[in-house]
């Protein structure tokens, strides 16, 4: 009986209607490892949790609560959930912002401010994505790696709608208008 109950129980955090594809529901007991693995690799700080101080970790972290101070996940992903409120200096491999962050964010890989996410502070990261509808106030420093050449100018594309008024499009100098 106990085994049969376990077979139909979804893994923690998994939607009930979407079992893992490799799992044959009702015919065999699921392996406990995947669920256990998820819990081990992604820690969640819930809505009601308030942390003041220094937060260090060596696994991915999702914050839905309030954190003030410093957050360091040097080699892991920090996700600020929609309910997360952060007043902290953040250092992580990647930072995904769906809630509110006040403070500087440094990521060695990427900062991703999603729709309705908010950042008030300076961002340092080689890759930055800011969604339409996100709030951002501060500076973005996408430092080139040492020795990396600057990006080549993009090949000009023919504009779809409009060209300059005076002169032929091929002769920019002739389009200049004295002021």
């Amino acid at each position: 009986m106990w085994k049969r109950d376990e077979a139909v129980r979804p893994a923690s955090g998994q939607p009930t209607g979407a079992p893992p594809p490799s799992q044959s529901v009702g015919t065999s007991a699921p392996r406990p490892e995947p669920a256990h693995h998820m819990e081990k690799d992604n820690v969640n700080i819930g809505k009601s949790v308030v942390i003041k101080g220094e937060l260090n970790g060596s696994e991915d972290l999702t914050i839905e609560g309030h954190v003030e101070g410093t957050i360091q996940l040097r080699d892991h992903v920090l996700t600020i959930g929609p309910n997360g409120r952060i007043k902290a200096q953040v250092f992580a491999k990647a930072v995904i912002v769906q809630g509110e962050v006040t403070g500087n964010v440094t990521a060695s890989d990427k900062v991703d401010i999603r729709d309705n996410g908010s950042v008030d502070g300076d961002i340092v990261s080689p890759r930055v994505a800011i969604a339409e509808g996100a709030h951002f106030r501060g500076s973005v420093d996408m430092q080139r790696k040492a020795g990396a050449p600057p990006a080549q100018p993009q090949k000009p594309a023919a504009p779809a709608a409009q060209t300059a008024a005076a002169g032929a499009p091929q002769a920019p100098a002739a389009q200049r208008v004295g002021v």
Partner: protein
Amino acid sequence: MGLLDRISTRKIEPESAAVVTAAVDDPVFSTKALRKFLACLRSNESAALIDLGAVVGSNVTFFGEQLGCKIFVQDILADLDRLIREGRPEAMPALLRTRFSEESSSIDGILCWDVFDYLDRPSARALADELTRVLRPEGALLGFFGTAQPRERGYTKYIVVDETTLRHRSYAAARGRQSALANRDIIQLFSTLRVSDSFLLQNNLREILFRKPVWEGQK
């Protein structure tokens, strides 16, 4: 591809389609001055850039990748909107005089877009003074100025498609464009800068690229 992957892909399809539709609906215009503006900044390994418009994620990515620069996003129009909604637009010049914490002559490039079209004269004066102060010698300032009498009430986000193309996306504004600035007014606003290039486009927009001259003592 697993079952979950296929399900999640199907879920986001309508959103993606909406984004694509919105992007297609936005008019696209050519720009002559942006390429020159970028050329001014490419020589600098660690350029610092101020963007006065609304934050546009793809622009941040574009300038970051093209220039590897530090970008300061200063949404002046959001400040203007807030003051107008609070019923005290007269506070704008004072706000602008304290808005920029950057050191004098520390910024390599400034993207004004069409912000000046939405400011009254005292605010435009205050902003021009501050921008001129923070711009370093040989730095570049790019501004768009409407040449026709304003009709529409919205702001415009200028989304960089490439060096010669901008997508114009309108969004709501508390107050519309002010009267169009004449050439002499623009020149007077930036009297300590020199006009490097000026282009008049068919969409009644004048693009002006200013450079800050290097004085003898600064060489």
